[in-house]
């Protein structure tokens, strides 16, 4: 049984645009799934509908077999939501926020207190349990949202840009935590603008743009489609112009750094050999752009400006 099944989901806002134009999406149980798209693409609308914060115009949503139209409470019971914005009462103590949230799911206060402690400890917030939420740092507030979403042990966790604005160390620790709960069986749907995050964490991916799904496959399959990669090479000697190498497009970034566009078919071995022949040694190599980011940009660009057929 899929964790989430969406069929022909549509949303038109009153006096507004058609935010979703009939999307179909299936997320299997246990998956770590990325839902990507540029700003205004329809991601948050889709998440809002799944979590019953937005009324759909048409279509069907099922969560672990529970239909949103006929068994709303059944759907809600299985979902935990980490929203983009800090939507907790900023004047409540941290522990109260979690205990109340558990109470809304029917968990009694004594049990709720234990669950709250477990999640706050996991997310390194236990020391802050009596702090008024508004006094937490941005990273702590993000972790509080995650702790709150997990206090009722949901089977499906939806994270809407959970690491926005947090420093790299906290982001890494959040990745580690999310990987752990996914391994323990929680299905995760993640939206993010950090495509490196999606590439590192997720197994499957859907890209939504302008209200339609333009791509839905596994990350591995998607990355195989990448025909070219752009690398940045740091070299040991200063050069005044970019070396010429057949089949490779080489440009000079600065005297000791080259940018090379490499076709998938060409590989890197011949590039290194050619540079060595010109007495240039490569000190380090890195992708100029995250690979998924590169694909994402190509796909959304094509979606917005499709190549027009020319009459010849």
């Amino acid at each position, binding site marked *: 049984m899929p964790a989430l099944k969406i069929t022909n989901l549509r949303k038109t806002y009153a006096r507004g645009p058609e935010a979703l134009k009939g999307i179909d999406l299936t997320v299997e149980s246990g998956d770590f799934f990325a839902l990507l798209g540029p700003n205004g693409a329809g991601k948050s609308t889709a998440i809002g509908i799944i979590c019953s914060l937005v009324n759909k115009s048409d279509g069907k949503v099922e969560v672990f077999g529970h239909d949103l139209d006929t068994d709303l*409470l059944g759907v*809600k019971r299985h979902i935990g939501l980490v929203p983009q914005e800090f*939507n907790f009462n900023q004047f409540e103590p941290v522990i*109260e926020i979690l205990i*109340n949230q558990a*109470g*809304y799911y029917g968990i*009694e*206060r004594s049990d709720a207190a234990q669950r709250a402690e477990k999640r706050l400890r996991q997310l390194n917030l236990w020391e802050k349990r009596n702090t008024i939420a508004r006094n937490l740092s941005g990273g702590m507030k993000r972790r509080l949202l995650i702790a709150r979403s997990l206090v009722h042990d949901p089977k499906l966790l939806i994270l809407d840009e959970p690491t926005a604005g947090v420093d790299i160390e906290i982001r890494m620790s959040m990745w580690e935590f999310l990987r752990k709960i996914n391994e323990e069986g929680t299905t995760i749907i993640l939206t993010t603008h950090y495509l490196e995050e999606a590439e590192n964490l997720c197994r499957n991916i859907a890209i939504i743009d302008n209200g339609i799904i333009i791509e839905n496959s596994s990350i591995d399959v998607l990355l195989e489609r990448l025909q070219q990669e752009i690398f940045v090479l740091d070299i040991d000697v200063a050069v005044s112009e970019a070396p010429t190498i057949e089949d490779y497009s080489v440009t000079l970034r600065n005297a000791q750094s080259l940018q090379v566009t490499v076709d998938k078919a060409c590989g890197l071995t011949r590039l290194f050999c050619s540079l060595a022949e010109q007495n240039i040694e490569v000190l380090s190599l890195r992708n100029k752009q995250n690979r998924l980011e590169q694909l994402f940009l190509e796909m959304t660009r094509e979606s917005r400006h499709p190549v027009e057929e020319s009459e010849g």
Partner: protein
Amino acid sequence: MNFRTNVWTPFTTLVIKEFNRFIRIWVQTVLPPGITMALYFAIFGKLIGERIGEMDGYAYIDFIVPGLILMAVITNSYANVVSSFYQAKFGRFIEEILVSPVPNWVILAGYVGGGVARGMVVGVLVTIVAMFFTDLQVHNYLVTLLVFFLTSVLFSLGGFINAVYARNFDDIAIVPTFVLTPLTYLGGIFYSIQLLPDFWQMASLANPILYMINAFRYGLIGISDINIAWAFVIILFFIAVLASFSMRLLNKGIGLRS
């Protein structure tokens, strides 16, 4: 349906949350009505009241105490729900509840429960304050407690509807200032409608708060300008209307879901 899991625990969670909220800010919520009512009792009840003499055979302070207690209950029940629910909308933490499996009627009952809790706390406080100024007797405990409770429920529902429609903080002050306060003052707190000309007596009967104040006065000192049974019919009627309307708003997600 598991009543404890689906109804009782979410309901008590909401009420406890609301109780903690208004107690946390007691200086803004509980203390002011205590001070205001003490001034009413001292100025209108004692200083001016002793010159007014009797009203319907009772000392003036004894006549106005029931209405003033109920006025505190009305304004505080209303204020609690309207401000709390609007703030939850404004800060978007209403979403905590909207994404949870809490039935809409439990959400409504929880917020009304919070309003009633504040109405009760303030009502008891004002009653204690009143006892410093007069020897308060209770004529009929059942009527007193029922009117106390039902009026609190009714105005909590009113506050809820106001909060659903409110788009800014001004919107939550308009109804209490321009509707609730005038109706309360004209609801016979300070006078018996028997003193009014016939036309204004009839006009006063269109004010639902008149029935509540008179029923409460009957419960405390045993006198009323209107029939007590009618008072209960009217209170229950308005509760049914406002509760149905509130449920309709919640089910449609008006002001809550786009």
